[in-house]
């Protein structure tokens, strides 16, 4: 490094800056730009820092929006899925409720028109009601054909859906 020696003027200014940094800003020989530089250096060095509560108050006053923004963004982030869920739940609930009420409101299913029992079957039933075991067994056998007819009618009334 080939640094030249400071001249007289520079040396005077350096001394003035040193005095200004020590807080002596009253000296008349200190130039204005030197005073400003000293004030800036003192501020960045920590002297003259604002008290914490004052700093917060100023920050709220001058920048309320940035401070409030994260909270609002948080609320919005929650509202999107929650709103979707609410809409979906409402749609499904209305549909489900409709299913349930339609079953309540819908008339009870009509019973099948029973096939008329043959006279022979009725006669065997009357005989079984006399207390004879053999007639009871015969009634059981006579029911076979009527049962087939009944199930045919039921299958027609309640068709099996694939």
């Amino acid at each position, binding site marked *: 490094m080939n640094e030249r020696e400071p001249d007289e003027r520079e040396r005077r200014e350096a001394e003035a800056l040193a005095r200004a940094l020590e807080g002596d800003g009253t000296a008349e020989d200190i130039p204005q730009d030197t005073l400003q530089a000293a004030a800036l250096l003192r501020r960045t060095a920590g002297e003259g820092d604002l008290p914490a509560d004052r700093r917060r108050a100023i920050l709220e006053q001058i920048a309320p929006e940035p401070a409030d923004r*994260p*909270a609002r963004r*948080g*609320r919005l982030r*929650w509202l999107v*899925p*929650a709103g979707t*869920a*609410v809409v*979906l*739940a409402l749609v*499904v*609930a209305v*549909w*489900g*409720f409709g*299913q*349930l009420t*339609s*079953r309540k409101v819908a008339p*009870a*299913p*009509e*019973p*099948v028109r*029973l096939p*008329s*029992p*043959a*006279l022979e*079957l*009725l006669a065997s*039933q*009357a005989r*079984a*009601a*006399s*207390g004879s*075991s053999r007639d*009871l*067994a015969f*009634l*059981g056998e006579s*029911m*076979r054909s*009527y*049962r087939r007819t*009944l*199930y045919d009618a*039921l*299958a027609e*009334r*309640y*068709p*099996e*859906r694939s």
Partner: protein
Amino acid sequence: MICRRTTSHQPLLSRAIMAAAMAAVLAGCAGCAGRADSGRWVRRALETNRLADRALAERDTATAVGLLRDLARDQAPAAVSARDGRLVRQDACFRLALLQLQQDRPDQALGWAEYGLELGRGQDLFTANLLVARGHANQALGHDKPAARDYHQALLINEDLMNQALGRPD
């Protein structure tokens, strides 16, 4: 702070909403399934009777009783009319009572006849059949008066059905 506290409730609330939605979906599906099942239930009842007949032809009474017992206890879907569901189950009860009487188990026969009559009554062949079966069970147990009462009630229904079959006014 407030913001963080609010977000901690979000998953809970969302889960509650989704649970309610799922419950509504399941309720709706159950309703649809009930309607679709009616035809299947009828076919299964018919098939059960066929299998019981086949078991009896092979002298396998235990299998026949097991099949008919399941049918008697199987409640019909909501889409099947209450009367039709009752008839199918009462017919199974009648068959079970007959089988128990043939096996000399009148107390079991009485139980099945009672069970069938508790499902409901009507002026029809199936109610009359159960009254006849209960009369036989009571008779076998020495309960003469209840047996006579059962036979009488069965004959009243039988007469009504006979009049209808002959086209005569009641």
